[in-house]
């Protein structure tokens, strides 16, 4: 056991010391920071929306003029000047706009908004909306419809989704749940591929360096494989924890210096208060670790079978196929039908469960399904580790033999 610890230590330290590790640790918080900066800049550029604009209305119909309502950033002002004079006047007041409503306003493109600056979308939309309301109102009165009665019978329905649970009704924001699930699936898929690949490359490297036989004369091949897998798992956990800590730190700093009223991260976090986030992070760690143990054992077996990294491709694809499949349908099907029977089966098969379960997690899957899924994961990784170890112990000492699936099966049945 002491030797496994030594191996873990070497695998961990040699990876954490690499420049690539440090770069990725700081890259993610740097991206978060950049995201804040971009948000801040966009916010700053669009802030001129908030300076009040005065809209000078030249109304040739007379039916709109008194009915415009001032908003916080848009003031309406009635002017009697003809259009040409108002146009000249506009040069002195760059923040003003002219709204010209001709007598035949109903025809297409006859109502005009003139300004020296490009008019913003919001102002346009606001004017359009108000004019439509006023015109509709006027028409109804003209046709003898009582607008007051109409307003009373008009309904304004908006759905407020509530989930009935034992703890009482709670708001459930389907959109946020969907994003959390998909994000979890993407994260777990990428982590499994990236860190599993590290295990595979590590094994292939030991084999092609020819150090493997020196090592297995001191430790059992299984100990070496186990040490490497655990070492890489610890590296990945270190990375996740550093990302979380640094991203939170960056969020606070960004919030302080950029002083954006709605920091996207904090805003997102507040909408996620409805979801048991700590629970999801806990399950993420379980499914990442068990999925990693399951896949990295297979990756280690592949690494042991080949003489160079280029040969790994033919094995990588079939092994990662279940993950890829689940990942692809998770975004479309699973996240929309988290309680379907396909979702259930995918979450009890250990090869697909990590991704499938992460998608379903925000939707609170039933406890018994979680229990089955989690125990299947444990059984699954013990099983694949056992298979992989049998291939590994033969593969690492086999040079110059072109590995194929048939060959791997043969190795599996070798006596010790």
């Amino acid at each position, binding site marked *: 056991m002491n*030797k496994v610890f*030594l*191996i873990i230590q*070497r695998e961990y330290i*040699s990876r954490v010391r690499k420049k690539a590790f440090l770069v990725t640790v700081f890259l993610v918080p740097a991206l978060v920071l950049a995201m804040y900066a971009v948000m801040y800049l966009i916010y700053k550029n669009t802030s001129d929306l908030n300076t009040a604009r005065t809209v000078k209305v030249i109304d040739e119909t007379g039916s709109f003029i008194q009915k415009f309502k001032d908003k916080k950033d848009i003031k309406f002002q009635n002017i009697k000047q003809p259009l040409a004079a108002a146009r000249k006047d506009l040069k002195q007041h760059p923040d003003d706009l002219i709204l010209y409503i001709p007598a035949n306003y109903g025809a297409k493109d006859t109502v005009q908004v003139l300004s020296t600056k490009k008019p913003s979308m919001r102002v346009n939309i606001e004017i359009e909306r108000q004019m439509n309301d006023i015109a509709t109102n006027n028409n109804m009165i003209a046709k003898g419809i009582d607008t007051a009665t109409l307003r009373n019978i008009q309904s304004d329905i908006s759905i407020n989704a509530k989930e009935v649970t034992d703890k009482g009704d709670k708001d459930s924001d389907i959109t946020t749940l969907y994003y959390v699930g998909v994000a979890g699936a993407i994260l777990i898929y990428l982590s499994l591929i990236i860190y599993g690949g590290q295990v595979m490359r590590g094994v292939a*490297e*030991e084999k092609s*360096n*020819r*150090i*493997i*036989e*020196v*090592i*297995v*004369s*001191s*430790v059992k*091949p299984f100990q070496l494989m186990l040490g490497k897998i655990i070492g890489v798992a610890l590296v990945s956990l270190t990375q996740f924890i550093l990302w979380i800590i640094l991203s939170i730190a960056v969020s606070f700093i960004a919030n302080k210096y950029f002083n954006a009223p709605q920091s996207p991260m904090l805003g997102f976090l507040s909408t996620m208060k409805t979801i048991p986030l700590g629970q999801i992070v806990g399950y993420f760690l379980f499914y990442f670790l068990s999925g990693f143990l399951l896949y990295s054992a297979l990756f280690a077996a592949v690494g042991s079978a080949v003489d160079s990294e280029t040969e790994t491709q033919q094995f990588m694809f079939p092994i990662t196929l279940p993950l890829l499949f689940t990942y692809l349908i998770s975004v479309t099907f699973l996240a929309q039908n988290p309680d379907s029977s396909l979702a259930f089966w995918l979450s009890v098969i250990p090869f697909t469960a990590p991704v499938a379960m992460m998608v379903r997690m925000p939707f609170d899957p039933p406890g018994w399904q979680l229990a089955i899924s989690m125990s299947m994961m444990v059984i699954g990784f013990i099983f694949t580790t056992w298979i992989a170890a049998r291939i590994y112990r033969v593969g690492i*000492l086999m*040079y110059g033999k072109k590995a194929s699936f048939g060959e791997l099966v*043969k190795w599996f*049945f*070798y*006596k*010790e």
Partner: protein
Amino acid sequence: MLSIRNIVKQYAGHTALSGVSLEIADGQIFGLLGPNGAGKTSLIRIINQITAPDSGEIYFAGEKLNQSHIERIGYMPEERGLYKKMEIGEQIVYLARLKGLSHAEATRRIKYWFEKLQIENWWNKKVEELSKGMQQKAQFIATVLHEPDLIILDEPFSGFDPVNADLIKNEILELNSKGATILFSTHRMESVEELCDSIALINKSKKILDGRIRDIRNSYRSNTYLIEYTGQKIDFTGQQPFTLLDEIATENSYTIRIKLNEGITSNDVLQYLIPQVHINLLQEVIPSVNEIFIQKVNQIS
């Protein structure tokens, strides 16, 4: 030191070892010889407990071979190498700790060896920055650092340049004189002939010969001598006390190979020749291990 009893090892499709038995005494330099594919590496891997035999037993210093013996064996495989990106000092410390040394003890001993092989400034160098010869020195240090009782070297001189091979050879002899038992394996039989006390010849998964190298060669003596002389060419008419095997004339001397007649010694031959010619050389022709091997293989088949 090592008693190997009836080891059988089969792989799918072929037999690597069929009933091989060997006795290696304490303090010996033992040569395990045979052509490529004879089963040498399979046997060595079994001794190192990298693989297990299908049947048969191995005793190490009187005890049945077990995990605790790993720390008393130093093994330099034929396929050897180091982690390329790791610093050399750190790397040897790691390998030594896997063999059970403490960090401090390993560091102390590496410093001793680095001084001895004059490579003190290498500690922080990465393996990929070192020349091949330097890597070989490091590899050798890693093999013997934990002061093993049994040092196993598989094809030790393949890949070593002549200077390093000689250096390593002397280090091996020094370790042997301090009490370590050495087990060599090689297919280049002439390379270890002068080093070994005892040898075993393995061919096609079977041991065909073993014993002390002197005894083996003595038993293959055939009363054959090589004589070089100058002077008048002798016409051998059949009166001489030996049979002429062949004769080569060079510019100013003649070399003959002879087989002594029954009951005749080399002294009798000299007495016969000295009155006639000037003798430059008389040497008994003892077959080399290589020749014995070929002879033995031919005999069996």
